[in-house]
Structure formats: structure tokens, C-alpha cells
């Protein structure tokens, strides 16, 4: 992670952008919202003056936390505005792409998870972060991560027929 501190802002942007969009996509269920969120986060990050940006020891972790925070606000607002139910679509952006049975089942299960549960699942099973780090990224306690993952996996196991 230390080498990340040395990276220029443009390099961090090029390297982290796609991964952050995928995190926001899984969390919000909307690719358009995910791109907006990540753009906003980077815009704020670029606005920081050089010294403040240099103080951020791990830009990737910092940016992930910022993205998750904005995703939370986005979903809360969507629920408040009643334009979306609590289960965003998470539809594949490439239409009619053939899905294997597992992918379809897990996609259905993800629809029924809360955004926070989705974020925990992404951090744990996509980025392979240990539970303690997932807790740090979600700004919660390790026990909460256990709870989030347990509930999420229970639901996904149900739909996979286990």
C-alpha cells in the first residue's frame, strides 16, 4: 500500500476508477449511479490540496470508504424519494447476455440484500479483504461484518438451493 502513496493523482485515478465503479455498482445496483458516485468522489479528492492528499496513506482504502459513504446516501435518498424500492435492479448492462444458473441465482439474491450487505459481500468475496479490513472500510465493528455476511450468505445459499 505504501507505493500507492507515491502514485500521482492521475495514476491513482486510472488504476482505481474501474474497481471503484464495480464496488458502487454492486452496492447501488445501478451502473449510472455508480459512475456518478465515483466521479464525485474523485472530484472531491482532486480538490484536496497536495499536502492533505499526501496525508492520506492509503488512497485506495480512502476512496473506497468515500464511495461506500456516497452509495449509502444515494440509496437512502432513492428510498426516500420512493423512485426505487429497497432492492435496486442490478440488471446486467449488456442486455441479454447469457447467464449461468449460479450467476442468475446470486443476482436474484443480491437484489434482496441491503446495500450494506452487498458492499460487505463485494469487499469480502471480490476484493478478498479479511473481515477486520471489511469492518474498517464499512466503518463498523467486526461483529457487524460477521452479521452482514452471515445474513447475506444465508440468503444466497437459499437461492442456490443448498
Amino acid at each position: 500500500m505504501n507505493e500507492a502513496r507515491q502514485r500521482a493523482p492521475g495514476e491513482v485515478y486510472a488504476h482505481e476508477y474501474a474497481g471503484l465503479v464495480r464496488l458502487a455498482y454492486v452496492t447501488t445496483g445501478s451502473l449510472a449511479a455508480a459512475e456518478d458516485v465515483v466521479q464525485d468522489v474523485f472530484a472531491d479528492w482532486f480538490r484536496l490540496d497536495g499536502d492533505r492528499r499526501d496525508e492520506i496513506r492509503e488512497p485506495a482504502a480512502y476512496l473506497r470508504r468515500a464511495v461506500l459513504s456516497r452509495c449509502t446516501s444515494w440509496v437512502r435518498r432513492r428510498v426516500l424519494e420512493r423512485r426505487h424500492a429497497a432492492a435496486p435492479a442490478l440488471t446486467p448492462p449488456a442486455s441479454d447476455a447469457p447467464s449461468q444458473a449460479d450467476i442468475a441465482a446470486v443476482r436474484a439474491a443480491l437484489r434482496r440484500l441491503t446495500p450494506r450487505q452487498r458492499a460487505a459481500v463485494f469487499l469480502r468475496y471480490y476484493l478478498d479483504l479479511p473481515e477486520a479490513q471489511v469492518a474498517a472500510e464499512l466503518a463498523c465493528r467486526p461483529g457487524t461484518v460477521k452479521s452482514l455476511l452471515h445474513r447475506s450468505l444465508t440468503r444466497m445459499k437459499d437461492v442456490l438451493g443448498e
Partner: protein
Amino acid sequence: MSDLEQRLRAAIRAIADEPDVPVPPRPAVTARRPWLIRYAVPALAALAVLVAVFAIGLPPVDHRPAAGADAAFLPDELAGLSLLTATVSDAPLGQPAMAVLDQGNLGSTWGSSQVVVIAADGRTYRRLDLAEQRGTVGDDSEWLHAPTSLSPDGRLVAIGDRRRSSTPDIVVLDLVTGQRRAYPLAQPSTYRLLGWSPNGRTLAILTSAGADPDSYGTAPGSEADLVLLDLATGLFATVQKALTESDGHHCFTGDGRTIAAGTYTDQGPAVALYPVDGSAPRTLPLTGEWHLIGCAPDGSLLVTTSPEVDPELRLVSATDGAVLRDTRLPQPVSNALAWRSANGPILYAPSWLTEGGTGRVLAAPFDGPVTTLSTADEGWFSRVTVLELAADLAGDAVPTSAGPERGLWPLWARVVAGVIAMLAAAVSVLRRRIASNGRAG
């Protein structure tokens, strides 16, 4: 790793990797103006308005102090928040409170989110300004009010502290008189209010060393001490040290001798039981998706299903977890607010558990039909996110449609009213002069 987990991992990777994510050009950003320039104009304008109002000296608006009530009432419909509601600091309730609620929407810059107390007469509303002041801006840039805990008799409210102070304290506010007492913690620490003992003499908190709470409030870290605050002496007594944290529901059992905590083990959901005398705790496993939401007066535990499945309610034995009573619910509930009897919980069914539906306070006896005692619309100004009732009063509370009585207008409202009156008078004078000049010409 099991085959199932490998399949899950592969499927999640496939879903997350589905979108084609081209990296757009770096966003163009402009440096922000210095804060002094950004805020100078609004600050000067606000100052001018204040000077104008104090210059004209507004007469006080007629304000009737809240009357006492022999019976306890609960509004049959919780009124939406209002910017014109007086604060407890300016106008104490003059009687115990029936309810404390977080109301409104994200943020509080324009008063769109408030902490409100409703008196036992069911019609007197006040803003709990101290809880709003002791809040902070969360990581999502939205304001988080300080957490509160209402005493069983409704007279006192404990107010937490989200301000990341190195010397935090718990403030206990007398809602009848407005007097407050601070209970400073001995060392820099964060804490979470858990609730009052049934006799109202003790407050339970989870606390951990260090003044760096997580972004969701003053929650303790991964390990926390379970501590009791004796309100009379101001002494803190540790019940259990270095607990594995738990963000589940906590409540005193009916006899006040044990604190039950909703928790999670590797095997699934459970209830941890901590005797307040410091003796050995024990864990009661729960099956499936059940979790703790209350403690019955007779010592049994109230559990419900997670919101994703059909809502059900159970009373289980705190001794061995045996199911004592079982019933279905019309909608998911978050927690027990009070009890009419050992078999008659009063429950909160928040709108956020029903995807935008109406929030309800339900009387849900195990041996009778579920009835609605109070509702909160899912409107912009009426949405209730957190609700507490005074446990000793709510069991006998009678629904009422009286009110709301909001007390003296806050200062800023009187200021605005004064400015509008001044402007109207000035316009009137100008028009008369113009008219008289016209006639003279």
C-alpha cells in the same frame, strides 16, 4: 473453502465484472473559494436581519405552558416536524414525556431533521435541541443527531455525544424542568447508550477507550465494556469487561438483574445475557433469522424474524430458549417500546422496514388481535426513523387526536416575522407617500 462458497465467489465476481467500465478523462475541478468569501455575504445578511429585529423589539408571542395530565396519551398520528416548534431549552415540557423521536430526512441544515419530544398529554411537542447540538456530521456529510434514551417514567432523557470530544459526558435532562446534569466519563472514550433499568435509577452503556468513534456514531470499537451509571451517585460500575462488540438490541430483563444483548456468533444469531452483578454471562442461541427486540416484564425474551421473511413474533424463555408464545405480525417491527402485560408488547413498525409504508406503533398481544395505536406517515417531514416511548406510561396510554401544541416560536422565526412586518410597513408608507405626492402634483 466449501464448494458452495467457491460458486458464490465466482458468481459475485462475474456479476461485478459485467459492466464495461471505460475510464473517462479526469474530472475537471476548480479550487473552492476561501470560506471567508463564501460565507461573508450570507453572514452579513443574517447580521443585518438580526440587528433589524432587535431594533424593533418584537413583543412576545402568547405562550401557554404545557399543562399537566392525569392520564397518559399517545398521539394517534404523530405530527410532522415544524420549524416553529419551541425547544426544550426555551420551554420545558412541564410534565413527563410520552415519546422521543428522530423525525424528518437527511441533514438538518434547514431543520429538515429534528429530535422531538412529545409530552404525556399527547399534544405538546418540543424540539430536543440538546440532542441536535450534540450531533455531528457523518461520513456521508449528513448530520447525525446525538442518540437518546428516555427513562421509563418519561421524566428524564439521557443524551449521548457524537462530537468526538476527548472528554465525553452523558447528559441527563429533566424534561419537566429543563434542568440538566452531566456525567463525565473518567477517560477519553466512546460510548453507546443501551437503556434504563426498569426502576429508572441506572443507565447501561457500552464504552471503549479512545475518542475515535466509528462513522455511524458513538459506537464502541471491537471490544467494549458493559458499564452501569448510577444516576444518584454519578458512579460508573463495570459489569463485564472486553465484551465482543454487539450492535444488536439491548434491554434489561424484567427484574433488572440481567442485560440481554442481541448478538451474532459464528453459528448464527444469539442472545448474550450479562448479570449486572458481574457473574458469568451466558449465551442463548437463536435459530434461523430470529433476533432480540425486547425483554418482557416476566423475564422472557421477545424475538422476531428478520425483515426479509414473513414477520413473526415469539416469546422465548431466557433460561433455555424454549418457545413460549408465537404469533404472526402484519408488518416487520424493529423493537418493543413498552408492555401492556407480559403477553402484550407495544411494538414499533418503522416505515423503513416496509419500503416506504406508514410507520406504526402496534399493540400486539399474543392472545388477541394486533391494533394500531399511532401512525407516522412516510412524508418528507413526518418520517420517523427512531422512536422511544416512556415504558411506564405507554402501557396505559390512550390514543388522542389533540394537538400539536408547539409552544413559543423560536427566535429566528420571530426575527423573520419581524422583518416581514417591517418591510410590509415600509412598503405601505412608501405607497401612501407616492399616492399623496401624486395627488399634490
